[in-house]
């Protein structure tokens, strides 16, 4: 198995590009929301980039992931196209979901992204299904369910863990523990403290990783994905991380500790960490990373510019896409 630090320069650059894209995308969406340009409920992934990208760097378009309400990062990590995503957030008919899904239901089946999901715990059963299909059809593909710490307490999630284990399904359960479900601390809501401690109860291996460190996530995911691909069954990964913004846009975050977010941004920024690791190991130079930053910034700016003027859905779109046929 290749560890993160053994990745090719191209792969490393691509990982950084995706993380940086998520970051810029989310910071931009934050501003857009504040300015009133975007409607609805929006949950930002900034700060958690290393998790989505660390995991998805082992997957191709035919592997499936399922996300949560906090789905933009998983989309980008899985290769969804940023301009279409931004158009979706604006509700344009050129959006990834033709403007019908919005932030909480953004999906791209062609990229193996089965959707953000506005029902907490909605995803894990569906990931089991993707894994079951892969197993039944013998495709060698895997599925990943991203779930939050809050979602780890939903019955559907527990059932899925047991279900995946007894069928040895090729699925990886990634629990992104960012410390909060809305305002509620995971240290309180998860009775056993660490989500990883639940793995033995479901007969599967579990591992806890530092979610600010792309390389830690990458290496844990490498093992889990390989286990899944080679018939070894499911794995539970608990990724410890933190979100840079509120639960959703508009959250005043008064439940968080004083200086907590500042400290996160200062000491636990996965992008900084990545830069330092690859710099120390002399794998990539600052200049190439800066170039990626610039490229990403331009991409997201273009996405916003296009999204602002993108076509709106025609009235008859209300009635289409309910059924394949009816």
């Amino acid at each position, binding site marked *: 198995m290749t560890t993160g630090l053994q990745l090719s320069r191209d792969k490393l650059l691509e990982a950084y590009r995706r993380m940086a894209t998520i970051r810029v995308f989310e910071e931009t969406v934050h501003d857009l929301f504040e300015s009133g340009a975007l409607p609805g409920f929006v949950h930002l992934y900034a700060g958690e980039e290393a998790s989505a990208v660390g995991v998805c760097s082992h997957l191709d378009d035919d592997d*499936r992931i*399922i996300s949560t309400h906090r789905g933009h990062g998983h989309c980008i990590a899985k290769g969804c196209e940023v301009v279409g995503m931004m158009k979706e957030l604006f509700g344009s008919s050129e*959006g*990834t*979901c*033709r*403007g*019908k*899904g919005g932030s909480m*239901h953004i*999906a*791209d*089946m*062609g990229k193996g992204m*089965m*959707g953000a*999901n506005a*029902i907490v715990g*909605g995803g*894990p*059963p*569906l*990931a*089991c*299904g*993707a894994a*079951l*299909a*892969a197993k*039944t*059809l013998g495709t060698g593909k895997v*599925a990943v369910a991203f779930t939050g710490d809050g979602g780890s307490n939903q*019955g*559907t999630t527990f*059932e*899925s863990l*047991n*279900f995946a284990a*007894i*069928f040895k399904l090729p699925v990886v359960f990634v629990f992104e523990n960012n410390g909060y479900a809305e305002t509620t601390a995971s240290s309180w809501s998860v009775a056993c403290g660490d989500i990883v401690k639940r793995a033995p109860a479901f007969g599967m291996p579990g591992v806890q990783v530092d979610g600010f460190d792309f390389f830690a996530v990458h290496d844990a995911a490498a093992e889990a994905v390989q286990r899944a691909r080679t018939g070894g069954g499911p794995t539970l990964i608990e990724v410890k991380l933190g979100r840079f913004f509120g639960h959703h846009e508009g959250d005043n975050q008064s439940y968080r500790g004083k200086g907590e977010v500042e400290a996160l941004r200062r000491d636990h920024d996965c992008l900084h960490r990545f830069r330092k690791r690859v710099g120390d190991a002399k794998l990539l130079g600052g200049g190439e990373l800066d170039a990626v930053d610039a490229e990403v910034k331009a991409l997201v700016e273009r996405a916003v510019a296009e999204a602002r003027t993108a076509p709106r859905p025609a009235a008859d779109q209300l009635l*289409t*896409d*309910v*059924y*394949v*046929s*009816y």
Partner: protein
Amino acid sequence: MARILSYRQALSEAFRQEMERDPTIIMLGEDIAGGKGAPGDQDAWGGDMGITKGLIGRFGEARVIDTPISESAFIGAAVGAATCGLRPVVELMFVDFMGVCFDQIFNQAAKFRYMFGGKARTPVVIRTQIGAGYRAAAQHSQCLYPLFTHIPGLKCVVPSTPYDAKGLFMTAVRDDDPVVFFEHKLLYDKAKGDVPEAPYTIPFGEAAIVRDGKDVTIVALARMVHFAQDVATDLAKEGIDVEIVDPRTISPLDEETILDSVAKTGRLVVVDEAYPRCGMAADIASLVAEHAFDDLKAPIRKVTPPHTPVPFAPELEDAFIPSRARIADAVRSVMRA
């Protein structure tokens, strides 16, 4: 020459024939084979009611999958697998259990296509038992199909005869949308009829005119179709000529056949075993009140159970279920009006 099968036999045959035709069809459910992990026989039950018996022997464990009692997980898995190239047929043993797994059905399967802008396909069939009369009381005797019919994105099928059960199942499993397939537990053995051996499909959204008549239209589903037929035979002796329409699928609903029938008869009685409030009887009655009002010669009558749970004691349960006598009275009352 007629080939008489029971509803149970017709379904079993449909399952086998379709699974033979299409290797992407899998079946999942609790004890649909039976004996998983146990020391004795596999296929020990073939489903709670024996309807899936024999499938595991023919198609193997990879396609006939017993599950733990985790309805959200395995129905959700069926839904997820449907978006990834399989055509799962998943059993929710009794529709009464929908409360532990409804989210995967109504927020996930039903909405994927719309939420994703037409870019998803979810060909899953959810089979489930409905109906009272089994002395199984409040949590095992409901119909509940109105709850599913309410939800855009689902298709709902309620066959009343062996012929329809086979043909509609074959349509369901070939359909690219999520279909909920409601089997009335009292029909498995009691409903018998002619069923061709060769596979055939019955289009969704096409009602059956079970009986031609000119005086009154009865719209009925599942077991109530049989009650309506008995009533029609009786009332013919009183000179009342009843037409019976069985919608067969309630989502989509064949509005045209119902409206045409009422246009002809001018009178409507809707008979339904589901609860009355926001139920199918109300749905159909309101359709006619809106779109065939000028054809109506009399008030519409609904014959349903009362707004109560299903009781255990046999005499109470029998009183809960719409009876032939109540149906006949309703028909007579609209003839008088």
